[in-house]
């Protein structure tokens, strides 16, 4: 059932009520968009980070930040692109700090035993090498590669999401794939 409230603009109590109603409407709008974009944020984070739990944490943080800044977003139709950018930046920050932490820890740790060929095959060595190769790509190419790899994202949609021409998406994608192949060859 729809809520109905009688308000008198200008009256202090009513002004407060108007603000509260506005905030509630804003929150509802945000939560509706979140239903569509929550998984997208997670996937963008997962594309940068190595573990799913880390990606979830980053996606949550990104959505919380987006909620805080949502009233300042002028063009609401660009919400998806905006959220993708926030998530991507946060995920990159998280990946960098994780890498630094890892480097610090490996300085003190004893070198692990060398894995056998079976170990490598079972533990997804190719994926790990791919992740390392992805880290060497420029940020713009990397984001294009991740978004293009998502199901249902055509080149045109990626171009719209990143607000760049389709030709730019194509060239960035082509170069990124070639560079990855070079690293993995």
């Amino acid at each position, binding site marked *: 059932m729809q809520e109905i409230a009688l308000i008198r603009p200008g009256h202090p109590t009513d002004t407060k009520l108007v603000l*509260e109603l506005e*905030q509630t409407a804003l*929150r509802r709008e*945000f*939560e509706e968009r*979140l*239903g569509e974009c*929550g*998984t997208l944020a*997670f*996937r963008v984070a*997962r*594309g940068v980070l190595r573990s*799913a739990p880390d*990606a*979830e944490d980053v*996606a*949550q943080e990104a*959505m*919380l930040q987006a*909620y*805080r800044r949502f009233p300042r977003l002028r063009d609401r139709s660009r919400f998806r692109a905006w959220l993708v950018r926030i998530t991507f930046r946060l995920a990159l920050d998280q990946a960098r700090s994780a890498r630094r932490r890892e480097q610090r820890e490996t300085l003190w740790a004893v070198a692990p035993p060398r894995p056998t060929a079976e170990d490598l095959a079972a533990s997804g060595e*190719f*994926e790990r090498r*791919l992740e390392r190769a992805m880290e060497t790509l420029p940020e713009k190419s990397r984001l294009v*590669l*991740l978004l293009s*790899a*998502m*199901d249902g994202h055509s080149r045109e949609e990626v171009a719209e999401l990143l607000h760049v021409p389709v030709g730019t998406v194509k060239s960035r994608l*082509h170069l990124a*794939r*070639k560079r*990855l*192949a070079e690293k*993995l*060859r």
Partner: protein
Amino acid sequence: MICEKYRDALIDAAAGEPPDRALADHLEACTPCRATQTREQDLFTAIDDALRASMSETPRAGFLAKVHAQIADEAQKQDAHKQSGWIPMWAWAGAAAALALVLVVIAHPWGRLRPPPITAEGVKAPALRAHESPAITQSVRGSAEHSRTQRHGRLDSPQPLYAQIPVSNQTASLEPEVLVPPDEAKAFALFVARLAGRDAMAEAVVRPAVEKAVERNADLPGVPSVDLADLQPDSLRWNDPIDESADSE
């Protein structure tokens, strides 16, 4: 070696670019290049599959519910802050910085700190007036009294010219001011009174040393050079009794 020139085109074709006619002809004839192309195509397929696999992962079941709960918490926090009149930390920091700036401006009146520009007239005038002014001892009597008169602009008694200039118009003090302890005031008054008759010496005393040095170096005509020996008059002895009449002026 002939296959080397097709290398880039071959990789581009494996990455999904349409192969040109020359490459297609070469591939039909060259078995190693066909094998390389197949290998490259496999590599690109593996990359695409791995990327697609990682990008099609879905978050855990309670993920979105958790996000909604966090947003609800955030909204409650925001409401509580608004109701309690909470002011963010950055606002306090900004206000403190502004207050500090105002205090600094009040504590340092920049105009007072800047020394007034000294003009040639401003420097020479007291030298001439040192022997011209009959009331020179009056100026010696107390610089505090003199500056008070200037500040309030009261001109009850005949004042020297410099005192009639409004304070705002003065670029520098025209009168040589000497701070003398009260018990030495009489002795200094006597000394100045004795100097009154000796223009050159008086001029030498009151003129700044820098100006004298400049004059000496430049050898300007018409200005007599002053020796240090001239500053010690024969008749002035420090043990002389103090002339009370000089002080009574």
